[in-house]
């Protein structure tokens, strides 16, 4: 009886411990801020790498590394953020256990934007799938279905210049690269379910990224189980509304622990090309005595 009780206690303790990585490879960020409302673990090999690197290490012209905020008593962020180290401090100077950041209702999720963007129109056939020959002008498009796959017979989705917003009520799998034409362009993908980058997506490089723009998943952001690098530039948000306990499912792995397989890259120009309808207005109004 005592033996059984001990087993039960061990099981309970084991289940209560947070799940930690089983994968050899790791993920990191170039020049961007990172936040998680719970645990942060990049699986950095031997604490010999920065979790957030600057353009000094990346070779890109972006600037300083980012600030890392989390709610993890023992985060695995390797040497932390690169820039403070260059300035003579510790790389952990820019790593903060900030706790969770508050969210108001369903703000910045699928239903929030679906209600906000009243200029939306249904996504036409053969625009993001099939022949992809029916590319429309920039605007706000929505697709009401449980799952949708963005898949074009071209290396990239043939987006025109301008600002596109795509609203998907369910899961969206992105099989073709989505890239911007120039610095004024913007693409937003908002999913009521998961955003999935499958193994079958064409390989990406730092000069040929898989994704550019703003990507918001009400549930999870998943990168599949392949062994190709995935370069993603922009803003990536996952709300885990199904309460799985995990916002990003990052399982790319080629067995070499020196490789970072998921590389998230900050794109500062997105702040200035942001679609007006996604911005926040600040107006005060009063009638005064004539």
């Amino acid at each position: 009886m005592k033996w059984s009780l001990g087993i039960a206690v061990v099981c309970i303790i084991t289940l209560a411990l947070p799940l930690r990585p089983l994968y050899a490879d790791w993920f990191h960020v170039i020049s961007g801020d990172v936040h998680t409302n719970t645990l942060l673990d990049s699986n950095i090999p031997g604490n010999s790498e920065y979790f957030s690197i600057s353009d000094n290490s990346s070779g890109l012209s972006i600037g300083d590394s980012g600030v890392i905020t989390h709610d993890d008593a023992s985060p695995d962020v390797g040497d932390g953020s690169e820039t403070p180290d260059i300035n003579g401090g510790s790389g952990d100077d820019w790593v903060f256990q900030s706790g969770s950041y508050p969210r108001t209702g369903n703000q910045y999720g699928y239903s929030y934007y679906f209600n906000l963007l009243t200029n939306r129109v249904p996504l036409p056939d053969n625009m993001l799938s099939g022949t992809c020959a029916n590319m429309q002008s920039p605007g706000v498009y929505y697709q009401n279905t449980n799952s949708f796959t963005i898949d074009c017979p071209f290396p990239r989705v043939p987006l025109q210049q301008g600002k596109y917003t795509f609203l998907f009520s369910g899961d969206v799998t992105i099989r073709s690269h989505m890239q911007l034409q120039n610095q004024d362009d913007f693409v937003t993908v908002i999913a009521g379910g998961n955003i999935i980058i499958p193994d079958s997506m064409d390989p990406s490089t730092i000069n040929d990224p898989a994704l550019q723009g703003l990507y918001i998943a009400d549930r999870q952001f998943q990168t599949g189980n392949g062994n190709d690098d995935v370069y993603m530039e922009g803003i990536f948000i996952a709300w885990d509304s199904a309460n799985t306990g995990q916002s990003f499912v990052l399982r790319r792995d080629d067995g070499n622990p020196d490789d970072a397989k998921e590389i998230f890259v900050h794109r500062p120009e997105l702040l200035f090309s942001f679609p007006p309808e996604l911005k926040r207005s600040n107006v005060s109004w009063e009638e005064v005595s004539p």
Partner: protein
Amino acid sequence: MGGGVPLTRFMHSPYTESGQAALIVVLASVVILTLGIGAVARSTVDIRLSAQTHEAAAAFAAAEAGIESGLLNKTSGTWQLTPTPPGIASAIYTVTGLPDLSSYDLGSVRRGDAKTVWLINDVASPFTSTHYVGDVTVEWDPDTAEMEAITYYISGSEVMVSRTVIDSGDQITFNSGDSPIDDQWIALRLKPIMEDMTNITISDYNGSFPVQGYRVESNGYTSSGINRRIVVHKWHDDVPGIFDFTIMGNSRLIKS
């Protein structure tokens, strides 16, 4: 009893009856006249009030139209329907750039959120706009709050970022010539890290500090002299702070 006049004598006198009738007619006339005058007076007041209400509404609508015109054109002017129908109000509006004082408040900012100080004159054209040259001082409350300040600047044809984390003190001054900005900054994003900020104040800028928004004051008026005045402060639209993160997860962010 014998010297008294019988009551019945008066009661049946034709003179007495005609006098009573006259009195009743007079009283009735007074009552009717009073009611009539009251009704006329009330109608007059009602009509006047109704006209005033209508004109006040027209003046207010004109003031609102002036606000819309001012926000759209960003220059002072007048709003008037052309040709102007009778009874329709007009508006005179003035547009001034914000800030209109030597310092201004960004208000409170929750941790994880951010607010922007624009350092170019044309926020719609960051690559071609004139850059502000000079100092900007940022002060915040509470003074224990850690803050990340992100300076966006142009280097060649690229937008780049320079970051500063302030974990002690309650103010910092930035200069356009700071390395690596080199007078090419576009905007400053201010982000509380660990706790909410109750206020952020911007000061110490010079006369060429870029417009951060507009104050529009519009006075709607009618020909009869009814005035309504509206004042609107509209700051430039801002990107919510959550979009400063390259990765943001509501739950675990781990390799798994």
